[in-house]
């Protein structure tokens, strides 16, 4: 099988390197993202995908049609869109992780198409926009374009860095706000000035204490709490009502849910301000009005659910076997640092999901952001093998050499 995949790759590896070079130079800063998306779209078309579509949220979807229509496989790659407030932080000349995912994802389908291996269902390769803490892209994709296919999807493979292992999940990440409203200037040291700070400090202190006692999960790691920001309005002490918000960036594990975290945060805050009858406390999941590069405005909650598949699940087992039987030294693992669209596909929709790709999540933050083209090509072959194992048509007994 592996030789078949390599054969499929050999014919297009020059094209892959050209594409890699092109995409490395592009970035997804607001002014350039349209060009980036267009580049991806055109590449899929030139590789002979049976259909290439774009939807209103900016998802780019390429389909390789199967010989039959039984079960589909979906590959998810993503485009990291920097937050509009940040200047387009330099991603130029880098084959950063998400770009490597896009290349290997797109080319895995091209390899399969070239080997003429018939599939029992469609292979759908999606390039999904993701801005920092929002998964608006993937949600829109599954609620619209892929809605009709939902019952037919055999599984999802996330083209994310896994060092060519099969990754089964990661911690969740959410952003929430604790809003404290009320007359904050009474009974505080009015003449001292900075009342807001004084009021706020006990809460912050308490949160710091809590952050040191968070639970941890054996496979996924430790939960984390980080105060991202503090904002207040109504600064003038003379005003009747003012409010401040503490914005918390929370990394959490499956035993905690976002609603339980919000409830707990509210309880903590209420405890801190026990005596203050004039203060009201509320917690809310942060939301962002995301304006996609295609002009659509979507309200997106800032939450990526934690998720974890298990090694004995058939989808995982078959994927790992497909790799190890073809000389990949893959093993099972989990991401420790990043979040992925798996939070939605498995966390919310319960579609079997795994991750496979070149490079490691550590590289995203390290100085050396480049990934070797060999690794990307290997990842493309590995993805093709995983897809083939699940929706390919096997031929037992006959060896291509022997006929």
């Amino acid at each position, binding site marked *: *099988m592996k030789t078949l995949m390599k*054969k499929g790759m050999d*014919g297009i590896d020059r094209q892959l390197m050209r594409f890699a070079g092109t995409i490395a130079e592009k970035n997804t800063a607001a002014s350039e993202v349209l060009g980036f998306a267009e580049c991806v779209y055109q590449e899929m078309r030139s590789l002979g995908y049976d259909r290439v579509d774009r939807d209103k949220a900016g998802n780019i979807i390429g389909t390789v049609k199967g*010989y*039959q229509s039984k079960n589909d496989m979906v590959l998810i790659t993503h485009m990291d869109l920097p937050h509009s407030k940040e200047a387009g932080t330099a991603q130029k000349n880098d084959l950063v992780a998400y770009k490597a995912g896009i290349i290997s994802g797109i080319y895995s389908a091209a390899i399969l198409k*070239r080997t*003429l*291996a*018939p599939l029992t269902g469609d292979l759908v390769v999606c390039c999904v926009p993701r801005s920092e803490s929002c998964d608006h892209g993937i949600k829109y994709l599954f609620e619209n374009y892929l809605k009709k296919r939902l019952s037919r999807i055999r599984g999802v493979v996330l083209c994310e860095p896994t060092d060519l292992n099969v990754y089964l999940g990661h911690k969740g990440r959410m952003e929430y706000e604790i809003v404290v409203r009320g007359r904050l200037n009474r009974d505080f040291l009015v003449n001292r000035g900075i009342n807001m700070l004084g009021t706020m400090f006990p809460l912050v202190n308490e949160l710091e204490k809590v952050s040191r006692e968070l639970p941890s999960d054996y496979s996924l790691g430790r939960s984390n709490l980080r105060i991202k920001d503090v904002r207040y309005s109504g600064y003038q002490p003379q005003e009747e009502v003012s409010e401040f918000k503490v914005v918390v960036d929370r990394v959490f594990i499956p035993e905690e849910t976002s609603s339980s975290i919000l409830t707990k945060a509210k309880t903590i805050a209420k405890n801190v301000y026990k005596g203050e009858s004039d203060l009201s406390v509320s917690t809310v999941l942060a939301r962002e009005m995301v304006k996609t590069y295609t002009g659509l405005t979507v309200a997106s909650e800032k939450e990526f659910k934690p998720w974890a598949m298990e090694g004995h699940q058939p989808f995982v087992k*078959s994927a790992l*076997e*497909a790799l190890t*039987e073809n000389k990949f030294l893959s093993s099972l693992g989990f991401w420790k640092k990043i979040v992925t669209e798996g939070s939605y596909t498995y966390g919310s929709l319960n579609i079997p999901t795994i991750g496979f790709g070149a490079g490691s999540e550590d590289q995203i933050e390290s100085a050396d952001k480049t990934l070797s083209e060999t690794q990307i090509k290997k990842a493309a072959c590995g993805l093709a093998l995983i897809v083939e*194992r699940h929706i*390919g*048509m*096997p*031929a*037992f*007994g*006959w*060896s*291509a*050499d*022997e*006929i």
Partner: protein
Amino acid sequence: MTLVIDPGSKEIKVWQVQRTKCGLVSTLTKEPADTALDKAACQKLVRRAAGKKKIDQAAFRILFGGDLFGGPAQVDDKFFGKFSRLTEFFPFYVPQVLETLKLFRAALKGVPLTAFFETSFFLGLPDEEKYYALPYEYHAGTRIKKWGFHGILHQAHANMFGPKEKVVSVVFDKQTTVSAIAGRRPLSISLGYTPLEGIMSRTSSGDLDPGIVFYLMKHEDLSIYALDDLLKNKSGFFGMTGYDLDIAELAKMYGKDPKVNAAFGVYETHILKYIGEALAELGGADAFVLSGSYLGPLMPIVYNLIKKISFLGIDTELAPWQSNETIFRITREGSAVRVYLDRMDTGAAITHLMQH
């Protein structure tokens, strides 16, 4: 002049076959199929193979026709749709060949094209030979049965004899197959649904105790894909000897290397098993025909085999057996059972079948 094309996945063979006073003469042109064939390359290949001669007709050697092709078929527009329905049975072969056939069809405009299948002849097997002793739902649901192989040569051999004669036909090729033929119809064939039933080959185990499959899956923790790979790519001569060599090369080591001898011993045993089966089915044989592209290189093994079954009434000329004829008898006049060697290649065999 007839052009016969074998659109293999590793290499494309094209025979140019002419009828001369001495019979059919074929010239072979080969082209590796690694790089995807395109329109121009295909046309170039056709021109190279045909030389300057006019192509009267062309034929394709297709390995599998499944249930859908019981005989040769016109390669017209309807053909492609029908052939692609076999994808589910032969997914590693049908898609590639479809593309190649379309290219050749374009390059051979105006030339009548016929497809010949290596399995067609065996659609005529008796039911008790064709089906396996599995629960009834597996026949009905999956249409699993013996497809057989090398039908083209076996059928050509059948046509060499009269309607009342009983023939054992053996083809020595990358696969080795034995067929019992009576009244020009097949009664048995060694290769089954896949080469995992039948005579061992370079990398395939051939006949094996089904219990071993389950034993190995359990003890070596193998998936069906890994076991399939083991049995079809890592067994056979390669598995038994450790030498990754062509059978023709291994034949040169016959008699000199104990592992090679052991492998050929099992190979011979497999062949004897199917000749025995053929003899029981036929109630005795009038003639044997031995053929295939490996007949020459395997001559020492073939010689041993004939010696082993000579008690059936086979009285051969002194070896080595040589002749200028394509098909010639190696037994003496008066031998109870006649034995023929047939050096006809696929191109000539198909051309021969086209004439009947």
